[in-house]
């Protein structure tokens, strides 16, 4: 009985979310088409096995820590104003903090609308619209694989990269000669609690981390009637760490400046995607009062998907990421740490093969295998752990997902 209660307590958020989702799914199916209220949701559960790293858990064994549940609503207040909100429950083991989150909670103002132009302003908590998968990274059936390329979509940064509290502007322009243009600008900051901080900074960091205001811009272009789409994104973000009175770390400051370019080709059977990232990661203090490190990291991936038919899709992807582009093999990192941090913490490469099978329009299973080399994107990144994280490690995962 006590074990049952413990289980109930551990997964209470999941139970609450699932009950609400099932109840509302019945109501949603009865939705009248002209109804200003829309309700949607999803539930996904999988198993994941990691051999050679603490990517999901500290024990190398099969884990069920692959749960994603979400419920959202949209209510059209008038022709120009709409309210939207989504709550998600996520459990990814060490990948990010387990629990319930308010994913977005916003007011959407349709500021200007014409046949060519559309301008929307979103105020509140919004999801980042900038990268190819930033707004749908937790939506199991909408991302290409169970685990996204970690160089760009590092799970440890999920809660600080997924969106922010502030405002976002979306401007679209359609030109019959030159194609479709999207411009996004956002300014906001992420609320970071102590559990989120622990995922990135380790349990030895007793202080608090604060996300200062960040700015992001993205531009997308699809030529007229083209299967291709191209994008460019810029991010400037700053965090301050305030140490506690008894702390292994001192006050510090982290700055990220990310630049990405991406291209996607959407054919009838073949689909190709590529994203490249250059990231400037500046650290002042934190490890010691005079510590200063200014790294320029680089990463990118190439992904191909082949639709065998309307139900089966095969996916393959190769990704490389280097924490410091001038130290791609990590030897300087090892030297600087007097050999305590092995060179393979300076990079992380991932070769992946997988498939997805659609049983119906809203029921799907995804399965994939990753062959990893390197440990630059394993939490906590400030405290590399060579005892559990090997240079070569593997992950396989299967996840079943339903949405409405």
């Amino acid at each position, binding site marked *: 009985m006590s074990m049952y209660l413990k289980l109930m307590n551990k997964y209470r958020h999941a139970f609450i979310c699932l009950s609400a989702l099932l109840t509302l799914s019945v109501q949603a199916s009865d939705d009248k*088409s*002209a109804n200003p209220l*829309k309700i*949607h949701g*999803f539930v996904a559960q999988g198993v994941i096995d990691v051999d050679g790293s603490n990517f999901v858990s500290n024990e190398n064994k099969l884990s069920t820590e692959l749960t994603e549940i*979400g419920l*959202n609503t*949209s209510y*059209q207040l008038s*022709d120009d104003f*709409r309210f*939207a*909100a*989504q709550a998600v429950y996520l459990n990814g083991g060490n990948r990010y903090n387990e629990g319930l989150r308010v*994913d*977005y909670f*916003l007011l*959407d103002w*349709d500021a200007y*609308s*014409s*046949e060519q132009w*559309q301008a*929307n302003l*979103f105020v509140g908590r*919004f*999801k980042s*619209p900038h990268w190819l998968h930033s*707004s*749908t990274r937790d*939506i199991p*059936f*909408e991302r290409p694989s169970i685990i996204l390329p970690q160089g760009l979509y590092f799970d440890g940064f999920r809660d600080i990269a997924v969106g922010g509290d502030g405002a976002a502007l*979306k401007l*679209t322009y*359609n030109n*019959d000669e030159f194609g*479709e243009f999207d411009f996004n600008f956002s300014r906001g900051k992420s609320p970071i609690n102590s559990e989120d901080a622990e995922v990135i900074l380790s349990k030895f960091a007793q202080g608090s981390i604060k996300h200062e205001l960040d700015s992001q811009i993205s531009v997308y272009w699809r030529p*007229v*009637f083209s299967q291709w789409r191209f994008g460019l994104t810029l991010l400037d973000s700053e965090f301050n760490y305030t140490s506690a009175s008894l702390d292994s770390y001192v006050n510090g400051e982290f700055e990220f400046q990310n630049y990405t370019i991406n291209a996607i080709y*959407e*054919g*009838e059977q073949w689909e190709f995607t590529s994203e490249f990232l250059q990231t400037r990661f500046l650290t002042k203090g934190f490890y010691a009062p005079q510590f200063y490190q200014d790294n320029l990291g680089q990463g990118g991936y190439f992904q191909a998907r082949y*639709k065998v038919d*309307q139900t089966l899709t095969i996916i393959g992807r190769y990704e490389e990421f280097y924490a410091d582009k001038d130290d791609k093999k990590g030897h300087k990192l090892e030297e600087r740490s007097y050999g305590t941090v092995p060179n393979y913490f300076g990079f992380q490469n991932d070769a992946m093969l997988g498939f997805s099978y659609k049983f119906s*329009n809203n029921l799907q299973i995804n399965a994939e295998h990753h062959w990893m080399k390197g440990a630059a994107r394993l939490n906590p990144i400030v405290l590399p752990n060579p005892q559990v994280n090997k240079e070569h490690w593997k992950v396989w995962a299967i996840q079943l997902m339903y949405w409405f």
Partner: protein
Amino acid sequence: MLFVMLIGSPVTHAIDVITNITADTASITTAQLRRIYSMRQVKWANGVPITVYVLSSNNIIHQKFCKETLRLFPYQLDRIWNKLTFSGMGIAPTPVKNMEELIKAVKSTTGAIGYIENINEVSDVNVLKIDE
């Protein structure tokens, strides 16, 4: 022989685009239709909000409309709509179960747009001329 082939083939119709009579337009370009179905244009020129109705993604008429009229693959539209729905940045078209429901919804909803395979089966809606 030709006669045998003709009577042996299933009767197929072109896909026509229909709107509620409040939508103030008689013709539309393919590019504009793509904008409407990819939710990049959400209001008609007269300011009336557009309500988009669709059949399910695996419906053969929906697939024909996407590929032949919009020159898009159904999965591309699904992706756009899911992204809007689950990021809070917009709303997706309203799905209906069958063609009868779609026609009824277009007739009764201000600013609505939909598609139909056999135009002879419907009245009290605008049938748009599609320009390239």
